[in-house]
């Protein structure tokens, strides 16, 4: 389903939209200098995570990249020498995003990196709705705190454990993307989200 008329999309049940859960591994956390070295995206269709449509790739960051973040992503420069160029990867991701809603865990890091990459390659950012699972967790926390004075962990692994989801290996783009997708559907159920509108109200990034 393509987002042509955003307004009609808002009132439909959340399952009817397509969500692409994206995870990026970068050389650092500063969006101005961080380069993408790996990316993965997995769709949620009809409320079900479609692992078969998982897209994962390493990314050749191009000249001038300062290598970093290896302690997290465990990739070495020589491992991405033959990987596709960032522009190629962005074209694939762009195709996914235009299909529906972008879901990330921690939009403050992932979004600026992605948007900057778009700018550098002269691509226009698709005006797709963005849902951040961290925001959904914060919405859950507001509710939990009101009920029980408890808190909700925001880090991906701990948030998953909090919702009773199994532990996955971290800092691998593919498993982080799937982990984010599962966290996303679990949160949607836990929050009792009915429509896309509600989803964006509780987890949307403006």
């Amino acid at each position, binding site marked *: 389903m393509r987002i042509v008329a955003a307004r009609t999309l808002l009132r439909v049940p959340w399952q009817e939209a397509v969500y692409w859960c994206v995870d990026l591994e970068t050389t650092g956390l500063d969006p101005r200098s961080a380069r993408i070295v790996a990316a993965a995206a997995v769709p949620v269709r009809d*409320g*079900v*995570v*479609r*692992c*078969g449509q998982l897209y994962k790739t390493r990314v050749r960051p191009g000249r001038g990249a300062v290598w970093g973040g290896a302690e997290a992503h465990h990739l070495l420069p020589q491992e991405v020498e033959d990987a596709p160029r960032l522009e190629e990867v962005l074209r694939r991701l762009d195709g996914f995003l235009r299909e529906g809603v972008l879901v990330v865990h921690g939009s403050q890091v992932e979004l600026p990196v992605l948007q900057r990459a778009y700018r550098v390659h002269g691509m226009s950012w698709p005006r797709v709705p963005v849902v951040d699972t961290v925001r959904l967790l914060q919405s859950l926390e507001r509710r939990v705190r009101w009920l029980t004075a408890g808190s909700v962990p925001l880090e991906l692994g701990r948030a998953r454990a909090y*919702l*009773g*989801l*199994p*532990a*996955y*290996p971290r800092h691998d783009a*593919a*498993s982080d993307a*799937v982990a984010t*997708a*599962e966290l996303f*559907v*679990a949160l949607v*159920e*836990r929050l009792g989200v009915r429509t896309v509108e509600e989803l964006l109200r509780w987890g949307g990034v403006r």
Partner: protein
Amino acid sequence: MDPVGFVRATRPFGQLSERELAHLAATLEVVYAPRGARVAEASTSQRYVYLVRKGAVRVHKDGMVAHLEEAEVFGGREGAFAAPLEAWAEEDSLLYRWPATVVDSVRRVPPVEEQVRSGVLVPVGELVRRPLVWVPVEATCRQAAERMVEEGVSSVLVAAHPPEPDGLPVGAVVGIVTDRDLRTKVVARGLGGEVPVASIMSSPVHTVDADTPTLSAVLRMLELGVHHLPVVREGRVAGMVTDTDLIRLQAHSPLFLLKRLEAGEIGRYADEVARATSALLEAGVDVVHVCRAVSYLHDALCRRVIRDAHARLGSEPTAYAWVVCGSEGREEQVLPTDQDNFLVVAEDGHGDYFRAFAEAVAEGLGAAGFPPCAGGYMATRWQMPLRAWLQTFQGWLADPQGENLLHLQVFLDFRAVAGSLSLESLERVVESVRTTPVSLAHMARGCVGFAVPLGPFRTLRSRHGRVDLKAGLVAPVVCAGRVLGLAAGSRVRNTFGRLDAAADGRLLSREDADAAKEALAFGLRLRLQFQLRALARGERPGNEVAVDELSGWEARRLRESLWIAGQLQEALRRRYHLYLWG
């Protein structure tokens, strides 16, 4: 673990090639089902095969209800939980699913549930690899040895007459000779190869039916202390299984441990029992069978340690019985806990020998990881001539209150594991309690004294977030089983057996007995899981579980089990009119 890693590790569809795994990975879908949500309905349940990744699912099929947990499979067209069925999430659950056609293309026969139980339940007949090797009863040891070398086997059967066209009838088998027999009975004694096999063979030969589950064959080997079992199919000997065949099934097999014990390696016994236990549990083996397998090992260890003590102190001056009691006596102990044992000797006047003997055995058991018993139920203190033991038991049974009751709760579950002295007279004393209801009533009172931690509306009553499974669940059921088993005149020590005896004797309905057995099995299993987890973390295993570490399903099951324990206490109260006692 990521989805593919999980499928690889749990092997829900048997051994898969990398290509098949890749196929499963490419078609995997992840479904999240909040508690109470319907996962599958009858009309569409054959479309997908579901694998429970996390959480629990309740499956309704043909009027039966099953609780499926992590790594279990339902839906699709094959297996125990094939469509049509309905399924609900018992708790928030993460499920993997595949279109049924995908799974059909990779799934191996035999079906899923047998794969999950990974080998231990396959019929032992399937393990027979080689044709039968036999020698005639007139053969010499040299001829037997030559046959074994030719065929590359470690044992031959001795037959009274040659096989018939359809095989060797089991009736024709008169003995078995193993390479060990040849070493210890021929070579080590300096005998020549012309000795007839008939003079050294073991006879009669224990056999096992080809349809016996492999686990039972393992238990039988442990019980008999043998390493070779002829497999019999329709009255004919189909071949031989050896402990090596069975060990190959599992690295942490109890049989492997038995071999190590026989070789004299006991230092790491406690660790290895824990590992064997968790391998058996993971293989889906019933906790009752796990307990039995482990108790054979404990017995083997005990006999090994006693052999060593005799080697140091010489043989006994008078007959004795080395007796274990408490949970070990009931064959319900899994991880080594305190030593509970006592010593019965035939005649008085050999105190010095038996004190040193008991010390040596206690020390050996301690080295293997059984700490000396804090309460002091140990043969180092508790050793008497049989006559004195009879009087002691009679005294306790005549007035089973206070300290006497505590003694009875441990000593009544006695089981001799070594020594030649018969305990028949002691058995008869215990049996006679059947005719003294007052004694049984006192013991019943001891049973209802355990507080089952269940509040109104079946809520869990935890202390600092923890529930004591021993005092709250296991002990009341064990005590009730003891009272009812004795009342039914049964000599069985095991609680499951006692509850069956009580049902046979119509002291308890069959349904109540089954419910009590299930409650106890659940309690033992849950405790064991927590103890193994504690050991893995390097902690000392205890009897308590933390309520917030229980899955929703486990917590519900625990509440049901505690309720059953309470009902059992209630039944005892009514039977022995304990309300009148105050």
